[in-house]
């Protein structure tokens, strides 16, 4: 699935839930199911700044695609992190860097979450895009035979 298709699927999933408690229930479930990050990556280097609860994000490159793993000390945050990872993991840096992200607004997360939480979500989005741009720049320079 493309990043766009994944976003559309998430929007559709959430549209079936009538009230915000149900939506939270779903987010919490996703948080509990989030595959755990390797403990060795839970270091200050991997912390995302701008989150009130702690979020660690790690990136791996496999066959030209970025794989994200993450964790948080707050389970709602973990659920939101899980949404992000579902959308972005398994795509090339170029796809991620060029993607247009609309599911956060479409689901209503930005208006319903507490401001600290939605700021954290935006920090995470920014960080994922930064990783992608950095990987993309690196692969471009390698293609051009230049050292980064």
């Amino acid at each position, binding site marked *: 699935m493309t990043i766009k298709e994944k976003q559309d699927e998430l929007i559709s999933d959430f549209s079936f839930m009538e009230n915000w408690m149900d939506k939270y229930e779903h987010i919490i479930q996703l948080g509990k199911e989030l595959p755990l990050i390797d403990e060795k990556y839970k270091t200050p280097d991997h912390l995302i700044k701008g989150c009130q609860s702690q979020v660690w994000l790690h990136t791996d490159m496999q066959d030209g695609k970025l794989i994200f793993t993450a964790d948080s000390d707050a*389970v709602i945050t973990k659920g939101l992190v899980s949404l992000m990872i579902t959308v972005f993991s398994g795509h090339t840096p170029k796809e991620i860097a060029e993607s247009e992200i609309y599911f956060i607004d479409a689901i209503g997360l930005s208006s319903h979450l507490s401001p600290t939480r939605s700021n954290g979500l935006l920090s995470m989005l920014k960080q994922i895009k930064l990783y992608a741009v950095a990987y993309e720049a690196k692969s471009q320079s390698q293609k051009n035979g230049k050292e980064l």
Partner: protein
Amino acid sequence: MQNVPDITVPAIDIEKIRKDFPLLQEKVYGLPLVYLDNAATTQKPQIVLDTLMHYYIHLNSNVHRGVHHLSQEATAAYENSRKTVASFLNARKPEEIIFTKGTTDSINLIAYSFGRGEIKPGDVVLVSAMEHHSNIVPWQMMCEDRGAEMKVIPMDENGELIMSEFSALLTDKVKIIAVTYVSNSLGTVNPVRDIIAQAHARNIPVLLDAAQAVQHMPVDVQELDVDFLVFSGHKIYGPTGTGVLYGKEEWLDRLPPYQGGGDMIKTVTFAKTIYNVLPYKFEAGTPDISGAIALEAAIKYVQQIGVENIQAWEEQLVDYAVQQLQQIEGLRFIGNAKHRSGAISFLVDDIHPYDLGELLDKQGIAIRTGHHCAEPVMGFFCIPGTVRASFAVYTTFEDIDRLVAGIKKAAAMLR
């Protein structure tokens, strides 16, 4: 409702009181609001809102300056508020009441003026381990500036000050002690009479942060014999941006002024300025006139109900809340002081306080999560923060039942 105790404070007509507060009639997410964040700020009764409006419609004029009618009216109203605050605290004279922007502003004033007037390199300022940042940072800044040292009265696991350690810290180097009357993060009521007695035995003045005290219990500065006492208007049903500094006249006379400007001067020449007398010496610039007058309305509102009655009512609420909360599986209190007031801090299992707070919010229950501007307290307990429920005169037993049900629901989702 479960096990609601017999209401034994006949003076508290809770239905009537709740009707006095327009915001309590609001709904959030379509649900009746349960407002349990009163330690952060209280809601305002109609009389306070009316007083603000009345001032701007009928009285607005600058104080202490004009010969004209309105200015005299505004000045009289502003100075009447000072008299009301003085009698509320049982100060000897209205001149011992300085209007400020709030508790933080009051502490900054004393830290600055006391530092400049009284502190030499090597001197010591004592604070406690449970202070709000407002009663730490101004002293830290002053100590850095004066080459003095800040020392901390430690607390134990229950969130109570270790008084033997306090006594051991009292040396001739200590020049002032700044402690909170009631902890905003733990609800602990500190043994301030004992602290003041021990301090005065060594001629050390004491500042009490009463931001979480004056709205919950009778406070009498003469009976306490406290040197400085500070509080915020907005936590006692008054407007934001208002605050009070009480200081004994001999201390306020002795300390140098804080800010310079209009109103705090007697005469100004480019060579030398002669400062005004108390209380004006510490009130530079046009004050928050409407705020001070509306603060008087808030204090009169409290006096009308009777602060003793409020205390009796809230003690029942706190007891009931503790009793109900401790039946929630996995809930632990942060701070278990024998003598507590106004606020209860807790955590449930390893659920993050932000998660719990967010799900309570979605059920229409306003509580506070986080470090409550007391990071050293959270550091002491090795926790990222707590969930805090804090009470006011308009809090009901039903509010607490909704809180308990809300926590159970949220915890079931989050576990």
